[in-house]
């Protein structure tokens, strides 16, 4: 969501809106996630803003990945052919309708592969939160290893758990990508519309 908002700001006509978003993106894109996690958890705490592990972790992941996602969305939006905007405007669609019905659906299609990678990456990055969290998966592993001295097995199990979480997510997103590319209507409303259209068209051809 934040990524999309940033992308919208960055394709804006007004420099005042583009600049802060561009600065934000460049900043967070070029700082390691680990540093962001430390700043939000330890850094903010030192100036009196104590966040819980979960809050600090989520905040770090959101600000970091929003920067990357905004890049993906921005290039997807500006990748939609200018003729699309024109055709839409020539049909009397306003700016909002043009974006929601013409530009965005096309941008979404080209942004999906990159978004897919980002989401899986995000999920995997939760493992970095080990540095600030005692309850997180990796550190549970450390507790167990120190109790049992079976490091390899324990960390393999943790890796397996990440895989089990990430694989379905990435496969699910790939499936969505394929469905969209094949032109399968995804919303019930659109399915209904196309069904009605088929019936009426068949009658018209006969």
């Amino acid at each position: 969501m934040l990524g999309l908002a940033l992308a919208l700001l960055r394709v804006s006509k007004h420099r005042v809106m583009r600049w802060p978003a561009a600065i934000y993106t460049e900043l967070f894109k070029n700082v390691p996630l680990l540093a962001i996690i430390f700043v939000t958890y330890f850094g903010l705490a030192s100036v009196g803003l104590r966040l819980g592990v979960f809050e600090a972790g989520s905040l770090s992941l959101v600000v970091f990945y929003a920067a990357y996602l905004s890049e993906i969305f921005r290039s997807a939006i500006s990748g939609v052919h200018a003729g699309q905007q024109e055709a839409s405007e020539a049909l009397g669609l306003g700016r909002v309708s043009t974006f929601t019905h013409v530009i965005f659906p096309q941008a979404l299609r080209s942004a999906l592969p990159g978004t897919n990678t980002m989401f899986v990456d995000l999920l995997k990055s939760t493992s970095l939160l080990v540095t600030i969290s005692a309850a997180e998966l990796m550190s549970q592993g450390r507790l167990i290893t120190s109790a049992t001295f079976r490091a390899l097995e324990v960390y393999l199990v943790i890796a397996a758990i990440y895989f089990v979480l990430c694989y379905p997510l990435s496969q699910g997103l790939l499936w969505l990508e394929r469905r969209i590319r094949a032109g399968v209507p995804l919303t019930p409303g659109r399915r209904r519309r196309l069904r009605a259209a088929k019936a009426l068209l068949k009658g018209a051809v006969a």
Partner: protein
Amino acid sequence: MSETAAVDATVSTPATQDAVVRIENLSKSFDGRMVLDNVGLTVDHRKILAIIGQSGGGKTTLLRCVNLLERPDNASMEVMGETVFAGDRLVCGDLAKLRRSVGMVFQRFNLFPHLTAVENVMLAQLRAGIAEKEALERAVQLLCRVGLAHRGVAYPEQLSGGEQQRVAIARALALRPSVLLFDEPTSSLDPESTGEVLRVMRELADDGMTMILVTHELPFARDVADTVVFVDGGRIVEQGTPAEVLGNPREPRTKAFLASSTASH
């Protein structure tokens, strides 16, 4: 459905005034370079105006000014008797309404690739507040009219160029515009597709659709147009009936253009 019903639905109600589009003193420059220099034209109800001329002469820009996709530097413009532009000011209160009464067909079709043919024809209707059922019926009727009812649920990329352009024509007709603008609608098509599209356009002409048509198909322009305008270097060099401009041009530049374009065909 009967043939006449389809025909009636396509043609807009007669205007009380004669001129559907009236443009005077239109000037437009890009980056300080004059692209249209004091151009004027009038298209009456049920009439067809053809614009011809060399590439780069300003034909597309002129056409795009009519529905204000391009904003003139200076002009006085009326569409359906309503002043939409005066001096250097846009006075059109409702740009969407203007655009709904002016349909446009592009050289490169510009269909929405994420929507099927029938949805392409429906979108503007739905956005204009027309009920789903009515929008669908009209879309199907228009697809029949351009001979593509059997391709209604195909996506643009599954259609040939000629089919795409016919869907684009149906889409432009969906909101019952008072005038249709065509910008070289057959320039990116092979001869067979060109034939299909010109056939549809001729039918529209026969039904009394008001049109402004930029084209290199001079025989077609001669057949259907009421007025031919030759544009060169951002000015209207010559204008008159097809017989006058195409058959017996007065201006040397028109003669040169016609000689070169008949030679290349």
